């Protein structure tokens, strides 16, 4: 692991890496690992600002949670163009960081382009959570997790395979690493007909816990999505210590 600015680098495997806060610097005894993965493919062109606003609003809302000190948040974006620099279609905006260290005003702008490495996004999200959680649990931290993957279309350009994704998801719930982990696939409508069915099938094929169709990528709908994300994070962090995931996460937005 190399160190930079209080963050360490970790390997998931198969050429995927992520970063996370240096564990020795963590002050709490339990953490919820939150991952938000955002589609930055060509089809979201014209919707970038709304998606950015959704992300910033969701993160900002987490600051008022009573468990804000127990959140470690990772944000990634995915499109096939990142393969040339990263070896896979994922780019990490920031690794697992204490919420208090996140400045949403410093988030980069999204620029839609490329095809959809959805397997890469899920593999990186869940694989990183599993890997980091293992490190934390070994040092007596209590850990649970929640992962949101926001996309407008199915997979068509991944390095990771469906099998790799299935295995990481299975590990996240049966591997007894995290106390609980919830994986949520969120579909947004940017005009690509048939996305809802494609994504529903993707969720079933990979074994993600929940698929939610957020509808049109309008400002209002994405604001509701931001609210859903922050409430789900809060519910998950409250569920720490109960041995299972939150019962309060809505199945719809």
């Amino acid at each position, binding site marked *: 692991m190399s160190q930079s600015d209080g963050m360490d680098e970790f390997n998931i495997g198969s050429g995927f890496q992520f970063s996370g806060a240096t*564990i*020795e*610097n*963590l*002050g*709490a*005894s*339990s953490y919820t690992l939150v991952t938000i993965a955002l589609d930055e493919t060509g089809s979201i062109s014209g919707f970038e600002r709304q998606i950015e606003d959704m992300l910033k609003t969701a993160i900002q809302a987490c600051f008022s949670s009573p468990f804000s000190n127990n959140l470690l948040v990772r944000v990634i974006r995915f499109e096939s163009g990142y393969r040339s620099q990263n070896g896979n279609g994922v780019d990490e905006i920031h690794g697992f960081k204490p919420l208090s260290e996140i400045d949403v005003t410093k988030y980069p702008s999204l620029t839609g382009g490329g095809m959809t490495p959805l397997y890469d996004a899920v593999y990186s999200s869940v694989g990183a959570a599993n890997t980091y959680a293992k490190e934390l649990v*070994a*040092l*007596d*931290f*209590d850990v649970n997790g929640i992962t949101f993957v926001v996309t407008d279309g199915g997979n068509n350009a991944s390095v990771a395979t469906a099998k790799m994704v299935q295995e990481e998801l299975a590990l996240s719930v049966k591997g007894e690493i995290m106390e609980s982990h919830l994986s949520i696939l969120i579909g947004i409508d940017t005009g690509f007909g048939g996305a809802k069915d494609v994504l529903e099938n993707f969720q079933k094929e990979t074994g993600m816990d929940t698929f939610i169709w957020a509808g049109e990528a309008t400002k209002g709908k994405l604001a509701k999505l931001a609210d859903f994300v922050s409430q789900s994070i809060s519910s998950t962090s409250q569920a720490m210590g109960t041995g299972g995931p939150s019962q309060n996460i809505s199945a719809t937005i």
Partner: protein
Amino acid sequence: MTLAHDHSFHIGEQHLKNGKPCQDYADSGMLSDSVAYAIVSDGCSSGGKTDIGSRLMVLATEQALREQFNPVVPRLNAIKDARDAYLRSWRDSLHLENKDLLATGLFIAADTNQCVVSIAGDGVLVIKTDTHIIAKKYEWQKNTPFYPAYNLVPEQKESFASLHAQDDKALTVETWCIYPDRTEQDDVETYSVEEGTEEIFGTYCTDVHVELIAVMSDGVLQVDGVDWKDVVQELVAFKSMSGQFAVRRMNRFLAQAKEAGRGPIDDIAYAVIQFPKQKS
């Protein structure tokens, strides 16, 4: 190199089920750049508001240590007097009764050369070296330990002494050595009530072989289905020296204990000072 310190306390099953608050309290910190402290207090269940009393005991001890502790010449009497003065002042200003302050007081103050330990009441002192754990269990006859608050009311101190008048071994201290493959009783010391009420005081050399020293409430003796020496061993099996290392260890231990049995019956607390690995 900085000393690491942490503490943790947790309500026991009896108090949880009876709607009573946790009467154990613990705290730890630094008195200076090079001296750390760790304090535990256990309130008397049949006393008054001893959840408050145990907190005041810890805070009074901390304040007394800040004012009076000298690593070169530890002056226990000056520390005790300062602590008791704070307790008396806070008791009166908060309009508490003396029975609200009936709580034990165990503390450690340490630097990288030596540590000073004081035990008033019952509990466990733990010293972990690179080869084994030394656990000293302090137990009073009739389950009636000495509480420093008796010093504030001479009649109560006399009454306590009378209670143990017939006990030539009012306070027993068992010393156990816990090795990876076996456990051996090393020593048994006994103290009269007079010696016990003066509080048991000791200094230990924290040489390169000492990894940590901790004080624990007697709650560690009452974890359902777990021998107290195993409780001690688990609670000091720290995976790191950073952050809330004692809170994490306690939480993990309690989760495992509750799977095996009912967990801690009594409130449980401990405070720890870890020494950085030193070159020999």
